[in-house]
């Protein structure tokens, strides 16, 4: 497939994630939208890693053109997993303190 189909698809998923962060007020759903944005970026990185694979595979005998990009995606997944565990712990603590997951109650820095 042409690369710009993947670009448009990843941009659409990213924009849906941004829209979710802007419109929803449940902290867990905002967090899930952040995960969606991370996955859109991962999809775009994998598509870019395969962009020149057909041309460059003739020169590289090992055939691992673009493996660095996929290692990068792997590390993004690692960091996302660590981030989710800490973030969900923060949301649980927030629920325990204010008995809600509405982010609009977290406005104490405003006053």
């Amino acid at each position, binding site marked *: 497939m042409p690369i710009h189909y993947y670009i448009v698809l990843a941009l659409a998923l990213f924009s849906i994630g941004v829209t979710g962060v802007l419109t929803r007020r449940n902290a867990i759903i905002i967090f899930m939208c952040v995960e969606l944005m991370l996955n859109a970026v991962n999809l775009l990185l994998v598509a870019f890693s395969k962009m020149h694979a057909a041309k460059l595979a003739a020169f590289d005998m090992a055939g691992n053109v673009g493996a660095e990009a996929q290692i990068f995606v792997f590390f993004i997944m690692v960091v996302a997993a660590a981030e989710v565990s800490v973030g*969900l712990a923060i949301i649980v603590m927030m629920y325990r303190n204010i008995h809600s997951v509405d982010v609009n109650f977290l406005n104490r820095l405003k006053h």
Partner: protein
Amino acid sequence: MNISEILFWFLSALAIGSALMMISSKNPVYSVLWLIIVFFAISGHYILLNAQFLAIVNIIVYAGAIMVLFLFVIMLMNLNAETEPRKNRWLKWAGTIAGGSLLLVLVAALRQVEQSGADKAVGEGNAGLIQNLGMVLFKDYVLPFEISSILFLSAMVGAVVIGKKGD
């Protein structure tokens, strides 16, 4: 239109439709389930691009571990549609328009570079196979791999410290 193009369009429509359902459903549990469908569609895209290791890792880590963690937290808090906070109508429209404008601006900015049209993402090359990725990961990137274990350890300690019942 061959089979991979049909699969591409099907998986793209599935991903975008499920993502829209994810941000628009009232019940958080349904949101989690729609997001799992999005992750499966993205894994299908990885398989189409011959990145099989990432497809499996995406299913195991995201759909298997992270989403189950989300489901546990939602069921622990006993959230449902009635406890959904009241939303301002205009704020919702403003957010939707802002997100759509972001998509419009990015696509319009990238229209200029799409003129070449020869760059294709193909499902060829062996980079996504687990053997080649393992060789690269444990030869060239072994130090970041070990550092990520320290990251996991610190995240684990942090989650336990934060989640501990304070006094």
